[in-house]
């Protein structure tokens, strides 16, 4: 019988059969490939009860303007039923640059909150009980410095560090691969990351010192397979670095967390989450033989795909986001961010972000999908996809092993080129209308009604610059310089930098001053241009 297309493919390019049957799972053993929820290899989920025990954490990524602006947005989100915070920093902060430095001009507060000093960090979390919320911070190059600021705020309020719970993204390898916000070369960056892992394991045991992220790899144009493979391989690289630094695997591996994209292809995405858990459990067990089962459990946050949203007919983005969020939930994510419909135009307005949060609440409370654990387990199609994703990721693992590891692969431009090629293939498919994006290459409307968007005023930049100038005048500059010097010495000697960073931020050294001082010791990086 005639079909609509000669060939049906998943978003990542897998051929899709008309129907899947038991013959697709011939040698497949449910005991080996699935296990029960909460049991090895965790394909069905890391907890026995999953969302029946507790729903996922609804965690909207937020940040813009000054620390006061973002503090108000945090309180708004908490008021409307969100239960975890997630900080978006602006570009200068992400690059370790002070608000008053010339490269920061025009960028202050535009795609996140501007944080240059401990004072900014205190204002950001004013009246928010740090021992009662969990906070996720999306920061990588300067992660250790921003973390030191957070710890210093907690100390100042008399909150014991062992009570703090949250996540530091701190995933530096994906910066070289995809997001491109690095400060130092890969090896010294890995060392800083290992320092934060070691420090947390001793002093901040509930904290997740790294969130190993596929999100940005996917946004940069990768396939689901590349996202899965490069992310898990990055994770194994971090484990190896920490083990080499002398940390027993069970001391830190249970606190590792992951962060994946939830894209448009519903079943492929669900399979990706399931394959990620199984692959991580198997690789961790095979390589490190951990005693604590939690060391092999992959817990993850998910965010719907920003790159799937369209500037054309932006209301359609609400629907896209709902489907993607459903994929993350059916895939068993531990926390979720849903994008707002206006994010291809600007940072989200209050109304748009509330609608995005409500989308999660509707899935959680009205759809009844959270009633049964891994409801698609055993589906011929989903299990076949899970197998294929795992096999294809293992294939990448072997290629990366052959290159000598991820750092070497990055220096050769390998993951960067694979992603760029995939994004070009996808773009060509769109331009040939082999894939349809509603409102973009089909069902196009010539006249569109504009929607309200959030604007960041120039006063944010003026205010931040003035504040920094005051801070520089009022601090004890002798004490500040001493703390920065001690930090540089400790960095050069290979000591754990965290205590020195905490001292430096308390002495009111700014983010930019600290990062510049560290660059003097650790060096800088220029990427190989891959085109």
């Amino acid at each position, binding site marked *: 019988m005639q079909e609509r297309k000669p060939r049906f493919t998943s978003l990542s390019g897998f051929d899709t059969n008309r129907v899947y049957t038991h013959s697709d799972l011939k040698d497949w053993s449910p005991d080996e490939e699935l296990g029960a929820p909460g049991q090895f290899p965790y394909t069905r989920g890391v907890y026995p009860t999953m969302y029946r025990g507790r729903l996922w954490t609804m965690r909207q990524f937020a940040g813009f303007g000054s620390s006061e602006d973002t503090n108000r947005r945090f309180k708004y989100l908490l008021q409307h039923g969100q239960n975890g915070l997630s900080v978006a920093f602006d*570009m*200068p902060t*992400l*690059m370790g*640059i002070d608000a008053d430095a010339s*490269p*920061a*001009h*025009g*960028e202050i507060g*535009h*795609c996140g909150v501007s944080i240059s000093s401990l004072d900014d960090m205190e204002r950001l979390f004013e009246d928010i009980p740090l021992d009662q919320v969990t906070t996720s911070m999306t920061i990588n190059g300067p992660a250790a410095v921003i973390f030191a600021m957070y710890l210093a705020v907690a100390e100042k309020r008399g909150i014991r560090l062992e009570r703090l719970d949250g996540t530091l993204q701190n995933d530096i390898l994906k*910066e070289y691969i995809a*997001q*491109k*916000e690095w400060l130092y070369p890969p090896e010294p960056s890995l060392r800083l990351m290992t320092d934060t892992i070691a420090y947390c394991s001793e002093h901040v045991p509930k904290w997740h010192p790294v969130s190993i992220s596929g999100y940005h790899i996917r*946004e*940069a*144009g990768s396939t689901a397979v590349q996202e899965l493979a490069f992310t898990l391989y990055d994770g194994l690289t971090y484990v190896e670095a920490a083990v080499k630094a002398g940390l027993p695997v069970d001391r830190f591996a249970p606190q590792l967390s992951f962060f994946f994209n939830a894209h448009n292809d519903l079943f492929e995405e669900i399979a990706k989450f399931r394959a990620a858990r199984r692959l991580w459990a198997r690789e961790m067990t095979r390589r490190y033989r951990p005693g604590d089962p939690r060391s092999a459990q992959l817990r993850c946050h998910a965010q719907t795909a920003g*790159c799937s949203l*369209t*500037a*054309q007919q932006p209301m359609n983005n609400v629907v896209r986001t709902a489907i993607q969020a459903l994929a993350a939930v059916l895939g068993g994510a531990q926390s979720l961010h849903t994008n707002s419909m206006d994010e*291809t*135009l*600007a*940072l989200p307005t209050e109304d748009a972000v509330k609608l995005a949060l409500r989308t999660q609440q509707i899935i959680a409370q009205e759809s009844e999908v959270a009633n049964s654990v891994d409801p698609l387990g055993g589906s011929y199609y989903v299990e076949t996809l899970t197998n294929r994703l795992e096999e294809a990721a293992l294939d990448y693992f072997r290629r990366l092993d052959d290159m000598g590891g991820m750092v070497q692969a990055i220096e050769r431009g390998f993951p960067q080129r694979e992603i*760029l090629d995939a*994004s*070009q293939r996808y*773009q060509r498919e769109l*331009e040939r209308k082999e894939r349809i*994006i509603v409102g*973009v*290459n089909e069902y196009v409307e010539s006249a569109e009604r*504009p929607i309200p*968007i959030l604007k*960041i005023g120039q006063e944010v930049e003026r205010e931040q610059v003035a504040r920094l100038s005051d801070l520089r005048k009022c601090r004890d500059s002798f004490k500040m310089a001493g703390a920065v010097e001690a930090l540089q010495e400790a960095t050069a000697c290979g000591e754990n930098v965290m205590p020195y960073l905490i001292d430096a931020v308390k002495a009111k050294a700014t983010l930019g001053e600290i990062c510049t001082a560290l660059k003097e010791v650790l060096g800088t990086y220029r*990427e190989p*241009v*891959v*085109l």
Partner: protein
Amino acid sequence: MAIASVPLRILIGKVGLDGHDRGVKLIARALRDAGLEVIYTGLHQTPEQVVNTAIQEDVDAIGLSILSGAHNTLFRRVLELLKEQEAGDIVLFGGGIIPDEDATALTADGVKVLFGPGRPIQEIVTFVKGLKPHG
């Protein structure tokens, strides 16, 4: 005849601090595949670096991508520097996450055209191929 055989030289780059280079690289590849000479600057360029490279490389046009929200400051700074260097005949175009209101104001100030998200790459290639060699 001789003029027609010289391909246009285009500088494609990322100004400012954001590292979102998916779009800009696809465009650089597409222009290269269409037979243009593409000079790709890589990431994190300042307006000064962009304008200096453009003059040194004797390009006919500059295409810049900005997804960080700093477009108002950075595009205007590039225009200003081009004028200062008496290179105002180099066409400036761009793309990124740029609200309509800002795009209208920037084109009024001299940015030739801004391509928003979702625009077909072929449209950008056609636009660039239609440009005249400068000077």
